[in-house]
């Protein structure tokens, strides 16, 4: 890749993403291109489509839930073009790897509300939790169980009692109990996977440092 263009890209991304050093950003860009597999194409409009991204989430970050992986994809894909470009990639990873509590809070909320109205509705919760009981009992019973679980969640998180969870509700609940950050399913990678990923992505920097 053209070193000059790369440098420019690093500069521009570094301006918006503060949690990575420039060298790290460069590594991430290189990795992105390696993943996309077409390093010579013009930098801006190449990207990872949903399947490729899900593959990464699965193999690198150890996520397994299809529904949530899709949602994570949409949360990464800020411009809704069904394709994650290099900026979105770095930005998203900054939350994944080094996100502050607030960033993660926001990210999770974005993952959980889908229809864009800014609330997590009862139906959405049901959708996300519907696979959370592994009981061999009948479907109705399971449904009943999930419904109760949804009620429990709403009772706990819906502070303003409007039957849905606003960002304010979510924020308050999570601040009170951090365990609720990924309340509707894992959408952030585990610490161990992050470490592995960083070790892999930044290995050039790490090795050059010594």
């Amino acid at each position, binding site marked *: 890749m053209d070193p000059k263009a790369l440098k420019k890209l690093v500069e521009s991304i570094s301006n918006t993403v503060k949690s990575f050093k420039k060298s790290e950003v460069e590594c991430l860009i290189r990795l992105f291109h390696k993943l996309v597999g077409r390093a010579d194409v013009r930098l801006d409009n190449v990207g990872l489509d949903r399947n490729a991204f899900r593959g990464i989430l699965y193999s690198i970050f150890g996520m397994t839930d299809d529904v949530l992986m899709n949602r994570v994809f949409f949360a990464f894909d800020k411009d809704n073009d069904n394709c994650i470009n290099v900026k979105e990639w770095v930005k998203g990873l900054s939350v994944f*790897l080094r996100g502050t*509590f607030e960033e993660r809070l926001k990210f999770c909320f974005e993952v959980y509300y889908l229809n864009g109205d800014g609330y997590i509705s009862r139906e959405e919760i049901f959708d996300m939790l519907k*696979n*959370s009981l592994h*009981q061999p009992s009948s479907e109705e019973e399971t449904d009943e169980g999930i419904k109760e*679980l949804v009620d*429990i969640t709403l009772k706990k998180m819906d502070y303003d009692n409007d039957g849905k969870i606003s960002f304010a509700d979510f924020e308050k609940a999570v601040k009170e109990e951090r365990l609720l950050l*990924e309340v509707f399913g894992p959408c952030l990678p585990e*610490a161990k996977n992050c470490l592995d990923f960083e070790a892999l992505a930044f290995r050039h920097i790490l090795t050059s440092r010594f």
Partner: protein
Amino acid sequence: MGVALTRSAQWTAAGRGTRTLETTPLNEAILKEIIMFVESFIYKYPQEAHYVFVDPLEWKTNLNPSAFESGYSVSETTVKSEEVDKNGKPLLFLSVPQIKVRSFGQLARLLLIAKNTKFQEAQACVEANRNPIAKILGLDYDTLTEDSSKVNILDKIIKEDDPEIDMKMKIAMLLKQLDLHLLNHSLKHISLEIRLNPGTVKNDIELLKRFSGKGEHTVLEYIDYTSDYEFSNGCRAPPWRQVHGEICYVLVKPHDVETLCVTCSSEGVFLNGGKTEDEGEINYERKGAVYKDLVTFLKEKSAKFSENMSKQEFAFSEEQQKEKDQPNEEPKKEEAITFRKAVTGSDRSTQEKNQINFGKTRMTKRLEPSLNWKATVDSKERRSLVRDSQEEKHIGRLEKARPSVSPGRAQIVRKSAEKIEEIISESSSESEEDEEPPDHRQEANADLPSEYWQIQKLVKYLKGGNQTATVIALCSMKDFNLAHETCQLAIRDVGGLEVLINLLDTDEVKCKIGSLKILKEISHNPQIRRNIVDLGGLPIMVKILDSPYKTLKCLAAETIANVAKFRRARRAVRSHGGITKLVALLDCGQNSTEPAQSSLYETRDMEVARCGALALWSCSKSYANKEAIRKAGGIPLLARLLKTSHENVLIPVVGTLQECASEESYRAAIKAERIIENLVKNLNSENEQLQEHCAMAIYQCAEDEETRDLVRLHGGLKPLASLLNNTDNKERLAAVTGAIWKCSISKENVTKFREYKAIETLVGLLTDQPEEVLVNVVGALGECCQEYENRVIVRKCGGIQPLVNLLVGINQALLVNVTKAVGACALEPESMTIIDRLDGVRLLWSLLKNPHPDVKASAAWALCPCIQNAKDAGEMVRSFVGGLELVVNLLKSDNKEVLASVCAAITNIAKDQENLAVITDHGVVPLLSKLANTNSDKLRHHLAEAISHCCMWGRNRVAFGEHNAVAPLVRYLKSNDTNVHRATAQALYQLSEDADNCITMHENGAVKLLLDMVGSPDQELQEAAAGCISNIRRLALATEKARYT
């Protein structure tokens, strides 16, 4: 007879040769009955007594031919009865040692002859003749019980109208009667014997556990299984012991007896050989009698137990009443009523049993009110890993949880049906908790608090949900008031505890965090703690301490801190390597090998250290753990943490140190690690609890002189003195006064305290304080009053009166301190006047009768200055009736301190001639002489003084010589203690007034030793030694002179 003997009598397992009867109460009873039957046979059935047996009963006897008298022809080794059969053969024939008997008459006479050994004879007879009926009546009659044989015999009777057959028949009937009688009799015996089973034992232990603990009112200090593992049959004994009927082994510590290691077996309860050192095997051998159950056993072993048990029993029955009322209020179906009646009937019939066997029925009563349903979840079933089972088990469990119903139910029902009228009227008066019908439980469930159902639902999600659902359920569960017992127990009773603990064993960090957050809260409940340990929660939590997540470490440590409040838990923490890991937590500030992404679920290093210290604090209540903490290098880490300013860290750190400071090794380390400085610094903290623990730590450490100096040098005395002014917090006050007491052992410190006006304050604390405070206050005053100025202060502040008032207490530690303080005050004549006026001397004197040697000694020491300084001391001492005799008799004590103190008292008493005369009459001289051969310098010192003073009366000098007191005294001069030298020289000087004593001294080489003493800088010693030598010399001269004139 045959049936009884084969069925009921307990034969030993088939050994070589003939089997023998075991010596059991049942067998003894059977034999006695047989003896009675035979003995009375002659009178009751004189005709039949002459009946000649078909075959003789033959056995080996221990009887001597010479024992037989009239009616027998006796030779050296044989005896023949004069009574003979038709053929002229004797009915009794003894050829040592074999004996043959052929009639009941002879049997009866034999038993009479045997007298004391008739029991042995009867036993030998029964043993040797396993089928007596066949021998007596012939084989036909042996199987008399069988109907067919009856016909046979009847046939015979009909066929040959023989009078002998008639006779035989009659005897057969008699024997059969005896047989029945014996069977009945043994049945009675058996019914008295209640065999234990795992259920009853477990109930016993559970209930006793509930009433165990520290404190006066519990029945035991603790009771616990030796093994946590329970087999599926309810036994805890290893399988190869279960074969012997053993159920489990229990460690019991009653209040007044050493820890007992007890075997519970189906035969009963007995003491075994105890657990071998270092947690080894149990010595299974039986070491004592077998008791029928644990309670009887403990009543026998511990007086305190049976005393407190009788108190508790009231509590039991109250609870029982409470629970019992319920079922009778709501009879649902006719059937249910009859069933209950039936049960009641059974209770009536077993009433006797229940009275003997402390609450067999009571045992299953759960004692928490409002928790009727608790019993429904059988702990054994709870053990099954809930994770494995996807389906909701709970309801099923409720229904099948009734294994306790006795197997003899059918019989009981039948029995009670016969008596139904009788029973109807009192169906409510009996306890029936044990057999509560299952439908009743369902009814009871309706009364449960709503939390119960909600928690049950959440536990369902914990069991059947994935990580997401589990986390939601955990978070939701956390919203319940987990500090409330209802919720705590509800979690356990719906099987939540197992799930929570299982979650700790997964890889899901969030689940672990959520679970620990709940466990941390509910483990404040003592029952839950035990359950957590029983379910094996501790090893898992100890493992979590290694986790890279600080939050997890913290939560695990905090939970351990809560759980490790009892011994078994602390031991479990240690044995799983928990102490080392907890100590490592203290080091958290130093190493930061945390994952980069740690902000999310992480906490500060200090928090980790705090939790670690908290857990160590709990653990440090066991001696072995203190040792383990030290070995793991905990002391330097604790010392380093002491430098922080975080109060919430300091409290557990100081708490741990204070707890551990009971050990010498710790005190040394505390000194070496410069911990005192920081303890002193934290005395100035705002936090009362911190102040308390710091003061407590100083109290523990200040036995050491260097430490006391350190406290002063770091300015610790002033804050201690000023803390005295706040008397609201009694715990802190006790700790602070304790620290002041120990610090005031150093004179420099006392001076400081006087400067800070602490003595006045201490005097003010002599009234209206709890005993823990009083002990320390008085102790401190006792130390302070060693100095004149302080004695004056105490007197001027009016401290004498309250001190004397405390002489009537019963607290040993307090009495020791009070007597010391009063004694110290008595050194000052003006104070002495007050003490005398308040009758303090009499009170001190009566403390000589205190059973505790420390009190005795302390009182005797205190009496010395009293006698010295009292006006008209001689008259005062004489006024105590029997007082002098009491003192002299104390010389028979075997406690060195008591002896020394009494010698000192006698020294003072003997200064009065009249009193000296009295104690001489009470035999003081031989008693003192007897003590002479001692190695204790303290005792030597006071003994020598006492002897020198007692010489002043009558022929006491001579008497000491006669009782061999002189030679040992001479040896005292070789001691290294100048006090001993002085006192001894004075004693020898007094004794040397008697010529014979001079000779003894000379023979024992006293002159040379005394000559050395003459060169001593101590004037009194010089004079006494010189005087003694001159006496000896004078005697020598006089003898020489006598020789030449």
